[in-house]
């Protein structure tokens, strides 16, 4: 449904997004995780056709966003970081206007607006000028605007920012509901949010994709559930069952094979250190143990670097996000 290929966006000498590629399948909810200034908003702006990429391309619902922008835009609903509301319009006037420019047929507009207001729970504010709404309502009216034309693709830039805990839960539930019919990309810098709503996560930092995985795998790794990188010179023997039979080992997956050297990713129950057992088993088989190291560190480091930069990088984010 969404395909991003080698996307690069430069602002003068500054590279905001650097060779980013990923795919989102129909009906999938993809989380876009990263600190402020990582390039989340820029990537989303390219996907919505707000700005053209410097290099690479992006396809939404099969349409290239730079070559067939109108077709792509007709199938995209977008909630920018700041909800784009006109302060002097009332909520229902605003949504009527949005449905008109999004090409909703005249006869359907009232029904679509009512439906969007109901889904986002803003109907009680229909007659209120947008300028007088609280942050939570603004965010939800922005979301209602994105849903109006029933788009295939929803792109939500920090949809839960500024909401109170109850509204956050409601919004997450709504996003999950929408997930079946719509393909959704949402950005956030809150890890639990991703694990609760998204089926897959792209972690982006300094404009580059640093990890793509399911939230379960990701949190498992981040939590430090013990994943081990083991490289063995097995010389003909099949090491996988040997490793899998060790007590405490939950999963063994082969990651690469090269000239008799096999690399595995060994996962074990949390809190169990299986390194000694692995080493002993390999020695017992007479194989060569080439490398054995815990994998969590690298991902943990990635995330640590992400979150620490979140604080340090905040003042420098400037006008690009």
């Amino acid at each position, binding site marked *: 449904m969404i395909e991003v290929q080698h996307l690069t966006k430069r602002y003068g000498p500054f590279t905001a997004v650097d060779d980013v590629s990923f795919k989102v399948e129909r009906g999938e909810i993809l989380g876009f995780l990263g600190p402020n200034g990582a390039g989340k908003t820029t990537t989303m702006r390219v996907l919505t056709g707000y700005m053209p990429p410097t290099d690479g391309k992006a396809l939404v619902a099969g349409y290239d966003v730079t070559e067939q922008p109108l077709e792509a835009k007709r199938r995209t609903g977008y909630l920018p970081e700041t909800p784009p509301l006109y302060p002097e319009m009332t909520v229902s006037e605003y949504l009527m*206007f949005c449905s008109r*420019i999004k090409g909703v047929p005249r006869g359907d507009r009232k029904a679509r607006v009512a439906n969007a207001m109901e889904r986002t729970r803003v109907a009680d504010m229909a007659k209120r000028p947008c300028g007088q709404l609280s942050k939570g309502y603004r965010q939800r009216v922005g979301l209602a605007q994105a849903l109006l034309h029933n788009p295939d693709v929803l792109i939500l830039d920090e949809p839960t920012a500024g909401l109170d805990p109850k509204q956050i839960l409601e919004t997450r539930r709504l996003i999950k509901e929408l997930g079946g019919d719509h393909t959704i990309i949402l950005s956030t810098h809150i890890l639990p949010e991703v694990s609760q709503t998204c089926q897959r996560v792209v972690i982006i930092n300094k404009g580059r994709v640093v990890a793509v995985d399911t939230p379960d795998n990701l949190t498992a790794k981040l939590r430090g559930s013990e994943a081990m990188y083991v490289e063995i010179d097995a010389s003909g023997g099949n090491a996988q069952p040997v490793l899998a039979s060790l007590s405490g080992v939950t999963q063994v997956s082969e990651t690469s094979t090269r000239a008799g050297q096999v690399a595995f990713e060994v996962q074990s129950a949390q809190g169990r250190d299986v390194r000694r057992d692995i080493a002993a088993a390999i020695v017992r088989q007479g194989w060569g143990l080439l490398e054995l190291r815990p994998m969590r560190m690298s991902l943990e480091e990635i995330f640590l670097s992400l979150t620490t930069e979140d604080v340090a990088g905040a003042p420098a984010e400037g006008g690009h996000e």
Partner: protein
Amino acid sequence: MNNILAIANKELRGYFASPIAYIVIGLFALAYGYFFYALVLYFERTTMQMAGMGAGASANVNEQLISPAFQNTMVVFLFILPMVTMRTYAEEKRSGTIELLLTAPLTDFQIIMGKFLGAMALFASMLAVTLIHIGILFAIGNPEPLPILTSYIGMLLMGGCFIAVGLLISSMTRNQIVAGMVTFIVFLMLWVIDWIALFVNPTASAVLNYLSFTQHLSDFMRGVIDTKHVVYYLSFIAFGLFLTARSVDTERWRG
């Protein structure tokens, strides 16, 4: 077309929902009322003098009252229209609503035309205030209708030029005050650009005269629609809107 009208309608409602429309129309009515009153006093004295000379001639309402009144109208617009156009793009960029427009299935042309027509509609409603005074003149006097009609066409075209320039300048900044000031100065320069025409070489003089807003209006005031002037105004508007489109596009690349 529906998209253009949607934007135009939104723009116009934006003017009337905020105090802007009421302030500009009110202030315009006040200023124009004063100008008109002053001109009526002058006209009255001229008529008296001519009658006193007993030449049998009488002053011409069109030439000596309506035409000067319209000239002054455009001077008032010189001050007011920057306040109308300054927010068009600058405000949308500042508040982020430009993201809504640029990610909706609209072309840049539709957005620009919508904004242009919205501002034109406000301008036309200000101009409509002057119909009151013209109506009174028709009620008590006997002015020629044709020059009045052509004057309105000329003023609408000239206002279109002002608005096209105003949109362009507003699209280049996110600060309304900057947009307003720059627009005002540009209008003023285009207004007085022919003042030095007498003192420069003939070619430059012709160019300056051609560029001046005012030179092209006088024929309309006399009841003449000359294609040359219509072409000048329309091409000015088209060029202004074209540059606005380029400016919006550049902004996209820059982010």
